[in-house]
């Protein structure tokens, strides 16, 4: 595939906390995936080029990928998370970049 035909990617670093502490990797993955799926739907997630790239359970810091033109939607989606399984949760976007290295 030509580079011009690929998704133009943006990487968003975030800080995740649920019930005041960072969740474990599997929980974080389930939380992020279910929240994005709920917000965008199956079709939306596919066109968003969404992927959870990295997550550190010790700090709650992570990186996710999205399509360049839909960065604002992805950030709004992250901001819309306020609770998970009855506990307060927060998915706070920190910075956005075109490369993982510059985050």
């Amino acid at each position, binding site marked *: 595939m030509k580079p011009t035909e690929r998704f133009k990617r943006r990487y968003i670093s975030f800080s995740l906390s649920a019930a005041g502490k960072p969740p474990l990797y599997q929980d974080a993955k389930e939380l992020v995936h279910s929240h994005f799926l709920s917000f965008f739907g199956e079709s939306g997630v596919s066109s968003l080029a969404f992927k959870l790239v990295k997550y550190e359970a010790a700090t709650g810091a992570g990186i996710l990928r999205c399509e360049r033109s839909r*960065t604002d939607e992805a*950030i*709004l989606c992250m901001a*819309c998370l306020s609770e998970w399984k009855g506990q307060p949760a*927060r998915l706070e*976007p920190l910075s956005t970049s075109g490369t993982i290295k510059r985050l």
Partner: protein
Amino acid sequence: MDIVRFEPNESEGAGRALPVSSLPFFFDIANATAAKGVCRKKSALVHAAAYEIDDGDLLELARAGGAIVFSFSDVLAERGFRRGIIISKMRLLLAACRKRGTGFAFATLAKDSSHMRSARELAAFAAVLGATDVEMKAAKKSIVRLAGRGEKPERPAQLSAAKAGK
């Protein structure tokens, strides 16, 4: 600058958040009927929970130098399909504000510090509703001016015209 529904202390961003109680010209309206009286008040900040305001009232509000407040808490309070509906209503109201030259502002109207959001998140909220970069700047100026002195906000339509003239 953000508007919240509680009294923030220093750790909760007191510098960048204004409590609603300190804004005498902030009005919460439940429906379109209640909007009629409020929109004639000078430099009013109007939050319509249903996001349904008649075009005539928007014109009145534009003449009086007021602004419509879009609250992020209203999005947070809903889930699933109802969240989709409220975002859709906000988009329609923003388009109506643009058409009538009414000012608008974006705030969290958070009830506690956990519902407060960063400036980047509010900018993303505004962008998803359809606000342009120029309109976002105008919205920020509106909220600072209306919160500070009750002056007339800059209207997005006027800003666009001024920019085109340059």
